[in-house]
């Protein structure tokens, strides 16, 4: 064949290719097969058909091999998760300490630990999921800390009122669970979630 002067997409000129006796590069024949294109030559040429047959035989074995890997649903991820988390908990991640209690008390808590309690408090409001929770020192010696909390809120709910409830829960938790003085709670709604019948927690106090 001399009609194919332009190398088709995917043909490489790396010297690794092989030219069939009919003149076509093996790579082209297999590319065509993979893209399911054919032309009069490939349909009748015994060399091309032989090359395709080789690949089809390989594909049959491949299909068998593919089936050998068990379904992902059959994999129990619990033990692996436990092992990973055991290692994760050994990792020392540098975190920021935050002041607790009175300025003179010299008592501190890591930001990640405080954030966990505050996110959890925010999520006690029905339909709320907490994301980023940053806690920073407010200005002034006795000013306490500023909380910046991102939440996903349920759609079709008054956001002002919802934010106020989240703020209240966060302040309560900071006060009761942590003894942390909060200067302000900034709430940013980063998504509205149309929760069908899923999140039913019955906590609307």
């Amino acid at each position, binding site marked *: 064949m001399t009609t194919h002067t332009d190398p088709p997409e995917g043909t490489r000129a790396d010297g690794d290719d092989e030219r069939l006796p009919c003149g076509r590069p093996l790579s082209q024949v297999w590319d065509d097969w993979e893209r399911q294109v054919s032309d009069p030559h490939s349909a009748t040429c015994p060399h091309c058909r032989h090359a395709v047959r080789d690949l089809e035989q390989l594909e049959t074995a491949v299909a068998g091999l593919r089936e050998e890997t068990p379904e992902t649903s059959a*994999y129990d991820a619990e033990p692996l998760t436990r092992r990973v988390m055991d290692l*994760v908990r050994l990792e020392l991640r540098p975190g920021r300490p935050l002041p607790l209690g009175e300025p003179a008390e010299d008592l501190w808590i890591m930001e990640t630990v405080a954030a966990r309690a505050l996110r959890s408090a925010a999520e006690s409001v029905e339909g709320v999921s907490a994301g980023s929770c940053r806690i920073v020192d407010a200005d002034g010696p006795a000013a306490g800390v500023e909380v910046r909390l991102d939440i996903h809120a349920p759609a079709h709910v008054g956001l002002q009122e919802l934010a106020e409830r989240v703020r209240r829960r966060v302040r309560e938790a900071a006060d009761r669970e942590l003894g942390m003085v909060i200067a302000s709670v900034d709430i940013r709604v980063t998504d509205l979630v149309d929760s069908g019948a899923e999140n039913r927690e019955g906590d609307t106090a």
Partner: protein
Amino acid sequence: MAGARRLTAPPDAGHDTGDTLLVVRAAEGDEDAFAALVQGHAPVLIRLATRLLGTVAEAEDAVQDAFLSAWRRLPEFHGQASFATWMYRIVTNRCLNVLRARRPVVPLEAAGEMPAAEHATSPARITEARDAVRELREALDLLSAEQRACWVLRELDGRSYEFIADAVGISQEAVRARVFRARRCLTQALGAWR
């Protein structure tokens, strides 16, 4: 902890919006959020690594290392890709390193020398098919680490050339070349006993 129940999200359901929160929280050091990500993404990654490496035991080691590395790098992960894609890339690269360390590269020519005479006489078609699968599994060891990775992602995991190029960090042309070479090596290996 009020949020704990929701954190154990269904694995294959809504990776998008559920993951967004989990990833942000994990990046800020929330271990429970990271545990939920591990639990949810492990099955797919284990399947990938098993296909790349050949055994579940090796796959588990590789995926475990990949998750630990992800935990360390999460603060710098800003969601350019989805968490799933990001993890896929980390696991692929981890497996590539394992494959590279595993073997001295066998030259392609060796593919023609597969010992297989005993199978040639096998009468039943079913046995033949099963033999072909086993031959194929053995022949995978003839591939270079890069050929094997590209071929597995393409043929067993059904990924596009574009996706593979991104996951392995090479050009699409290079991926195509490796898949081609892998196919040639494997067809020769399978042909050797026919």
